[in-house]
């Protein structure tokens, strides 16, 4: 029996798949097990196949795999959709009394448990609890103590009153008892518990929590999948710290409101996905030119245009790196896992304020909708440091006024970073503009001033390149001749793929890059390798292009753009295949 268990519930959108899956994931987390969740869903409220998958182990899990051990199937299609992941010995829990499930044939070698989910739920107090009956049945199959599920049910339903909580607990027990009594089978699954404490959260929540920790007090946004969870997390919570979430009328307003708040001195942020980034791009140039600190989060999804809104892709890299007319100084930071979503958000706010430059904080759908367990100390709030850069108040403003007593918000300093006053500070009144401007922030077309200001803004990036940490994350065998590079959420799948590869006798050095611009210089690492493989979720290999550009070396590419994230076992195979290909001959 493998150390990890792969469990899923699937059905129609509107069947309560997400909340049921979350309840089970939370029960496992509270039982001291590591959890990694993923969702298959369509962009609609009702109808269409949707599934919530949980991978769990006592060891850390970083990825999904192509194997499903226990499936709660609310529709026949759920079984079809997962046929290639089911295997001999997989358990399928279904309700044969449901009209759509009456003709279900459990595939050869698998164990079908026909449990009257709806009838049992009605016995417990209402048909709505049929998914909870199924969870009880799953507890029995996996030998998982139902008391852990109780805790999770209490957390989920306590706001609805103790009676509801008790009914749900009863529903779970009816499911458990039914399996125990009706199926005389010794299931091959045993979910062990530990005393460890874990928290369970997704990437959007980690970004939201990072924003509050970093002192973000103003968030304006327009709902868009898969970034909306950032906004929903902050709503209500940011208020406790004197902040506010504003739902704007569109993305144009969202970024401009955030810009206004940032001019007032608040740490401000907006989050969106690709289509929103397109709309925000004009103002992005203004943010950079007016030297306003702002964090703009892009939670990428499949594009272009409306694309596949609920599917994974890392296709926005070029847009984030080059988007906007003219030449726009910026930072592009891309966390590689869920806990890094928290820490890189904190870093993004510091970069924005220290260098008065916009920061693109880049996540992707896989990070956003995946929940993962972490020891709470992973998010040690005492480690959060807030660096606000060159903010000038009444006491030191004199040094930055010209001979006429005018404050100089774009003074061309040696490091490129100018002093900054916040509205309300006496003697600091100044304007700024998206027009090219002089050190006072006033429009100019003077050729010398133009060069001075362009250079000054670029100098900030140079300064940051020298003074900040742009290092990569490294895994696997540092001496291997095979180098795999990736960015964003692929890190988890690749880390697990390393184990598969090691098992096959293939050693790999894996470098996960969280900074797109500026980014670490990888030329030595690439020079040292025989094979360089760049892994990313897009069709054209945008990150691979950057690596080739930086190192003047051809790399091999593993690209996936069908809308589904990499799975660890699949990725290991892809790497093996690439290694089997001849390394490209130097161009004649």
């Amino acid at each position: 029996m493998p150390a990890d268990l792969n469990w899923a519930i699937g059905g129609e959108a509107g069947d309560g798949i997400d909340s049921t899956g979350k309840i089970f994931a939370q029960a496992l987390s509270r039982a001291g097990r590591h959890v990694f969740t993923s969702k298959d869903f369509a962009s609609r409220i009702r109808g269409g196949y949707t599934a919530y998958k949980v991978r769990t182990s006592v060891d850390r899990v970083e990825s999904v795999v192509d194997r499903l051990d226990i499936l709660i199937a609310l529709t026949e299609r759920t079984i079809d959709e997962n046929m290639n992941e089911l295997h001999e010995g997989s358990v399928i829990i279904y309700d044969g009394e449901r009209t759509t499930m009456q003709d279900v044939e459990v595939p050869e070698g698998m164990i079908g448990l026909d449990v009257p989910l709806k009838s049992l739920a009605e016995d417990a107090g209402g048909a709505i609890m049929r998914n909870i009956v199924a969870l009880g049945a799953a507890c029995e199959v996996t030998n998982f103590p139902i008391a852990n599920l109780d805790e999770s049910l209490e957390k989920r339903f306590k706001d609805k009153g103790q009676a509801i909580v008790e009914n749900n607990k009863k529903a779970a027990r009816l499911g458990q008892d039914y399996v125990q009594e009706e199926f005389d089978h010794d299931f091959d699954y045993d979910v062990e518990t530990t005393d460890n404490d874990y928290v369970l959260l997704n990437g959007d929540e980690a970004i939201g929590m990072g924003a509050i920790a970093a002192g973000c007090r103003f968030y304006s946004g327009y709902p868009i999948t898969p970034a909306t969870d950032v906004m929903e997390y902050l709503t209500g919570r940011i208020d406790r710290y004197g902040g506010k979430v504003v739902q704007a009328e569109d993305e144009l307003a969202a970024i401009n409101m955030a810009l206004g708040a940032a001019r007032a001195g608040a740490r401000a942020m907006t989050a969106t996905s690709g289509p929103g980034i397109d709309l925000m791009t004009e103002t992005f140039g203004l943010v950079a030119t007016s030297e306003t600190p702002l964090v703009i989060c892009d939670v990428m999804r499949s594009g272009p245009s409306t694309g596949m809104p609920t599917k994974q892709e890392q296709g926005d890299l070029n847009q984030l790196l080059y988007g906007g007319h003219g030449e726009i100084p910026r930072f592009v930071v891309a966390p590689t896992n869920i806990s890094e979503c928290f820490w890189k958000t904190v870093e993004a706010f510091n970069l924005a304020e220290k260098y008065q430059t916009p920061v693109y904080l880049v996540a992707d759908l896989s990070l956003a909708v995946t929940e993962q367990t972490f020891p709470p100390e992973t998010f040690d709030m005492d480690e959060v440091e807030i660096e606000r850069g060159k903010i000038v108040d009444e006491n030191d403003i004199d040094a930055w006024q010209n001979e006429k007593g005018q404050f100089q918000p774009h003074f061309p300093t040696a490091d490129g970073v100018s002093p900054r006053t916040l509205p309300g500070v006496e003697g600091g009144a100044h304007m700024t503009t998206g027009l090219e401007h002089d050190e006072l922030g006033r429009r100019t077309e003077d050729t010398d001033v133009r060069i001075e200001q362009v250079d000054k803004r670029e100098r900030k990036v140079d300064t940051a390149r020298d003074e900040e940490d742009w290092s990569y994350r490294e895994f696997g065998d540092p001496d291997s001749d095979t180098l795999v590079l990736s960015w964003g959420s692929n890190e988890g799948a690749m880390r697990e793929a390393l184990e598969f590869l090691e098992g096959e006798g293939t050693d790999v050095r894996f470098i996960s890059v969280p900074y797109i611009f500026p980014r670490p210089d990888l030329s030595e690492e690439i020079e040292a390798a025989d094979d360089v493989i760049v892994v990313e979720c897009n069709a054209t290999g945008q990150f691979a292009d950057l690596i080739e550009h930086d190192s003047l070396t051809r790399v091999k590419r593993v690209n996936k753009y069908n809308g589904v994230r990499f799975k660890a076992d699949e990725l290991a195979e892809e790497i093996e295949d690439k290694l089997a290909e001849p390394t490209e001959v130097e161009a004649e």
Partner: protein
Amino acid sequence: MSSEIRFTDFKSDKQPTWCPGCGDFGTMNGMMKALANTGNSPDDTFVVAGIGCSGKIGTYMHSYALHGVHGRALPVGIGTKLANPNLEVMVAGGDGDGYSIGAGHFIHAVRRNVDMTYVVMDNRIYGLTKGQASPTSREEFETATTPEGPKQPPVNPLALALAAGGTFIAQSFSSDSQRHTEIVKQAIEHDGFGFVNVYSPCVTFNDVDTYDYFRDTIVDLSEADHDPTDYDDAKSAILDADKEYQGVIYQDEGSVPFDEREGLTDSMADIPEGAPEDAMDLVREFY
């Protein structure tokens, strides 16, 4: 402090490049006087300017200011005010900025009713791009891009504001300095979104909506039988297409601004040097 503030304190040392005789001179002077008369100082005032001739106002006034992208001045002003409600926020722009490219923001800013002031310099023409039709141009007004006129009725910004739930809707004429200043002052003092559409004639590209035209036709509501707190009076005046009115057309005296309803009173700029003291509670929520 207010006694020391003069309206010239709001003037920058940059000379305006508006055409001699441009209505925007009078519009800006009235804004500066109204700001000074309401006890504001340049250091606690934030002006947001749009794009167009009107947008240059940020350069000619002295205060904290941002000159942004075309049509997006209102959301900037809203963000600034919510992040620091102690600031006096004034947004200024033209008819193209406010009623064409920024029309969506206009309606939502009116609805949101944040405590700020919006002054639109309405000259019924695009001046900076040298004379094309604007959303408030007359249906038959001939321009380079509309040789036979726009052939569509002009936007009625006052009606839009009323329909969107406006709590302060006014109109003034840049050349009537005293009344214009009074009206902007009332907009500043209003608890909520103070909206003033200012007739601000373009002497170069609009030979229809001229100083003479407005002088001859304008009706001052303060001298007419008009109660600005009466919604029906406001509706009649706003929908009366035959007259050009100046004065406060509508004011909801019970207006409670968005910022106040949301309990926002302090600057969001003040934050600790690390995470909030109880921030580990946020982590524990995920148990």
